Each structure stands twice: as C-alpha cells, then as structure tokens.
C-alpha cells in the first residue's frame, strides 16, 4: 500500500433504530463522505425484529428502512458515498431485496447492493451452552427462543466492499466494525496490525451512537449548554492513515463537538478501558489522546490493540410475553397522599382479589420513580402519576392490571384523572460465546 493515502471521511446517518433522518440527508448531501454508516441495532432490537419476522417472513428489518433508503440512495449515489448498515436486523435478505426494489422505483441504475448473512447462528449453539456473564444455560430459560445472532466483524464486511458494493446491508454487524471495515480497505490495514485496528475501532466506537458525540445526550442547561440541539448535526470522522482522526460535524448544523462530548462517548458502555472487546480486536482506550482544536474539531489518537478474541458474542433472544403498564395522575394539595393511597388499593386488589403471580412495581412519578430503589423520593409533590407495571407471560394478568388501574377513576381516591394503559411485547436476551471458526458469513450482490 502506498504511504500517505488521503484522509478518509466517514459519517454517521443513524446511531440507533429510531434515529433522525433529516440530519442524515443533510450530511449525505454536504459531507463529501466516502462512507455513510447507519447503525440501527441494539442488543434487544434484533430480538424484536425476530418477532416481526416470525409474524411475517417479509419483515424483520428496520421499520424506517423505506424512508431512509428513499431519501439517501439518490443523494449517496450522486456523491459516490457507500452506505453500510445493519438495518437488515433479523432479515437482511428481505432488507436488501426491499432496497433493490426502492432503487429500481427511483430509477437508480448500476447500484450494487451487498447482503451479508451468516450472523443467524440458530442451530449452531447448543442448549447446554453457558451464559457469558451470569449463571445458567439456554436450557434453563422457560421462554421460547425467537432467534440468535453472532456479532460479525469487519472480516465479514471487507469482502463485500472489495466487490465494489454501493450499499452493504447486514444483520448483527458489530457497530464499530462497520466503520473499521472501509478503513481497513482504504488504508490497507492488515489483520495483524492491531494498533491500526484499534484506532479504527475507536473511530467506530465514538461515531456509532450518532449525535451522542455532537452534543446529543449531553445538554444540561446552565452548565453544559449545547447550541441549537433541535437541529443537531450528525458526526463526521476524518481519518488519517496512522489511525488518528478528527471528529467534526457540518458547518451550519446545531450541536457541538468538544473535548467533553468526546470524553463522555469514549467510555460509553465501556467497562475496562484497556480491554474493549470487539470481533476485530481487543482495543485499549486507556491512553487515548484527545485534542480540542476548537470550531467543533476534536482530534483523537493513540488507541492500542491486542489480537481479537477467538470467540464471537451471540445474543439469544427469548419471547418473554408482555409488559403491561398503566397510570393515573393526581394534582394539587395532597396529591402525593392520594397517589400513595391509590398505590395501596391497586396493590391490594391485584394481589388479594386477582392473585397475580407476576412481580408488580408501583411508582409515584413526581414523588419518586427512577431513583426510588436508590432511596431518593420527594414526599410532597403537587403533581404525581401512579405508574403500575408488570412483565408476564400470561396476557390475562396484563389485562387485569390495566383494568384495575382504570377502575381507580370511580373507585379510587379523589381527583384522579388521565388513565392510560398499554400492553407491549416483552423479550429477554442473554449472551453466549461461539467459536468464531464455525460462524461463516457470506454475501450476495443484487444489482439494479
């Protein structure tokens, strides 16, 4: 590989399944990007997608795929930007076929869409497999398995890029690997060049949550103010051959990139900063250098690496029935006292009259909820909301919970109003390890 290859520009156009689109279109249009990554999967998103797929074999991919592809395919084709995404979720093939259809409908010709499969490892994991970080095996879980997916690394993505794919769609592609793969290809980084792999992984880790590094999830009025958060821009990484990178964003967008936004993201969901495991490398972020150049440009460098793990992480999803939630509000003098009385009534009726077996939790929003277990409650609020919740495999229990909370309107304390109740699907996920030698990613290309 020739020395001094040009700076490579990667942008993030989604950092989670429900992320914004307008800022992604702006970035694709003005960002002069080599690659746009749409990271749309969390641990549990895949399991929910498996449920969708079980209900309809044509579904099981990101709900916003149509909107995203309709808007971004023409812009990215015009700018020569490759799209890499895990929007395929539990059904990458259907996602790729749908993208192909959208491209044809838009009259885009010569588009190469690579579909990566092989992350679905159902059948390759035995029921006596132990969980990664808790006691138990798959066989000890009473719920039905909906799907299991291995985290695929850059080695699953690079071959698809090698064939000149314009769009790469996979399922459980590991978040940072979607950034590392095009960097390995552009700079010719090899599998044993662990410091470069760690540097690319650092870029991916910082970028994968989208606006969490450009001022999103950061603002705290008066002490950490962020300009124009309503029009926050997605991040851009300008990566150099030596692995250092400048994190920035488009001029004219809201948000900010500062030393502080980068620091918060550096250790987001990281445990030991010296051992961040991905399918590609064991990355050491503990000596990372951060240099704020001002004007929303922050340079990061000095990640180090050790070889990648021999095993891949697998997320196993189980159907855990439903989550039932219902609430009623109380306001004015004695609101908290009336809310507490309502809580006692609901608890008593669910347990003694209906004999609910599942655990129930009752919160008084406004007087103590998120921090209730931590011991932080404010006893005298003038605006509280009773919130009652359970997880259950028995839908009858869920419906009873909603009914009892609604019944408070006539049978509970004075002045209660604003009943709402919802029952939503619940899933449970567990992690196991799989020998990477038996996971065989493949790809197939569709052309328009």
């Amino acid at each position: 590989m020739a020395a001094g290859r040009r700076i490579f520009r990667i942008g993030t156009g989604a950092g989670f399944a429900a992320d914004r689109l307008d800022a992604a279109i702006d970035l694709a249009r003005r960002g002069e990007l080599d690659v746009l990554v749409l990271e749309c999967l969390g641990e549990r998103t895949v399991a929910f997608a498996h449920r969708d797929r079980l209900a309809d074999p044509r579904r099981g991919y990101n709900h916003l795929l149509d909107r995203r592809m309709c808007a971004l395919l023409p812009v990215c084709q015009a700018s020569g930007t490759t799209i890499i995404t895990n929007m395929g979720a539990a059904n990458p093939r259907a996602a790729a076929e749908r993208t192909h259809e959208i491209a044809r409908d838009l009259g885009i010709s010569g588009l190469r869409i690579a579909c990566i499969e092989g992350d679905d490892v159902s059948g390759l994991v035995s029921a006596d497999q132990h969980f990664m970080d808790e006691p138990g095996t798959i066989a000890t879980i009473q719920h039905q398995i909906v799907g299991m997916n291995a985290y695929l690394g850059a080695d699953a993505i690079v071959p698809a890029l090698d064939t000149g794919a314009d769009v790469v769609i996979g399922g459980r592609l590991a978040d940072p690997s979607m950034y590392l793969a095009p960097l390995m290809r552009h700079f010719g980084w090899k599998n044993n060049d662990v410091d470069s792999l760690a540097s690319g992984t650092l870029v991916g880790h910082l970028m994968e949550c989208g606006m969490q590094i450009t001022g999103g999830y950061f603002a705290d009025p008066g002490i950490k103010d962020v300009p124009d958060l309503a029009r926050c821009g997605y991040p851009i990484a300008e990566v150099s051959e030596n692995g250092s990178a400048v994190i920035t964003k488009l001029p004219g967008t809201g948000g900010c990139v500062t030393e502080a936004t980068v620091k918060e993201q550096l250790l987001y969901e990281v445990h030991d900063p010296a051992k961040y495991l991905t399918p590609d490398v064991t990355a050491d972020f503990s000596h990372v250098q951060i240099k704020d150049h001002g004007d929303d440009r922050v340079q990061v460098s000095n990640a180090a690496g050790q070889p990648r793990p021999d095993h891949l992480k697998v997320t196993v999803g189980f159907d855990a029935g439903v989550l039932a939630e219902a609430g009623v509000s109380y306001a004015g003098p004695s609101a908290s006292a009336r809310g507490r009385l309502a809580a006692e009534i609901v608890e008593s009726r669910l347990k003694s009259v209906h004999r609910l077996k599942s655990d129930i939790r009752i919160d008084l929003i406004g007087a103590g909820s998120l921090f209730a277990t931590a011991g932080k409650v404010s006893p005298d609020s003038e605006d509280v909301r009773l919130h009652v919740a359970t997880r259950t495999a028995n839908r009858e229990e869920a419906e009873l919970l909603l009914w009892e909370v609604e019944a408070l309107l006539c049978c509970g304390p004075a002045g209660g109003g604003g009943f709402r109740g919802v029952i939503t699907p619940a899933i449970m996920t567990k992690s196991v390890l799989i020998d990477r030698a038996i996971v065989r990613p493949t790809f197939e290309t569709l052309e328009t």
Partner: protein
Amino acid sequence: MSPIHRNERNLVRDIAHARAGDKGNTSNVNVWVYDSADFELLKRNLTVERIKREFPQLVRGNVSRYVIEHLHGLNFVMHDALEGGVNASLNLDSHGKSWSYLILGLALES
C-alpha cells in the same frame, strides 16, 4: 472550566459531567471533571466504598473504579445495579440511563 463558582459548589455535578451506559444487569458511569484542578477532589469524593454506601438497595454487586489519569476521568462499573437490567427491570428507566445523575447528585463531602 465549570461555570459554577468555586464558593457555590455543593454537588459532584458542580465540578464534573457524566454519562451512563448498560450491559445486561451491569451499569457503567463515566465521570469527568471540567477543570483538571478538581480531579483530586473528584477522586476523594467518588470512591468505590462511597458508591456502595450511598445506594445499597440499588447497587448490589461489585463496583470497580477505573482511573483515566491523563484525561481526568473515572469510570465506575457497577454489577447487579440495574434491578435486573433491561430484560427484567420494571423501573421506568430500565436501562439506568439516569444513573449518571445519581452520581452527579452526590454531595461533595471533602
């Protein structure tokens, strides 16, 4: 620099900022001082023992503290600290995203 005046600093929030993340039933909160001169104060105030002492009902497992000396930050890894985690917790915030403000809400003691 923190915009909070030196004489008006009562909480960890007045000298530091933080972000929380979750993996299963484990929460991690990274905490960074605005001004490197406050790092020793932060380290004195946020110890493993203090975290366990402040939230015994919530933080039930082991707590580790990683010190990132040159960036003036701490990373707390709190096991069995998410009421079962996003799979099982009935807390409205089943990810414990707000745990960053549990830490930032602690008083500066020394």
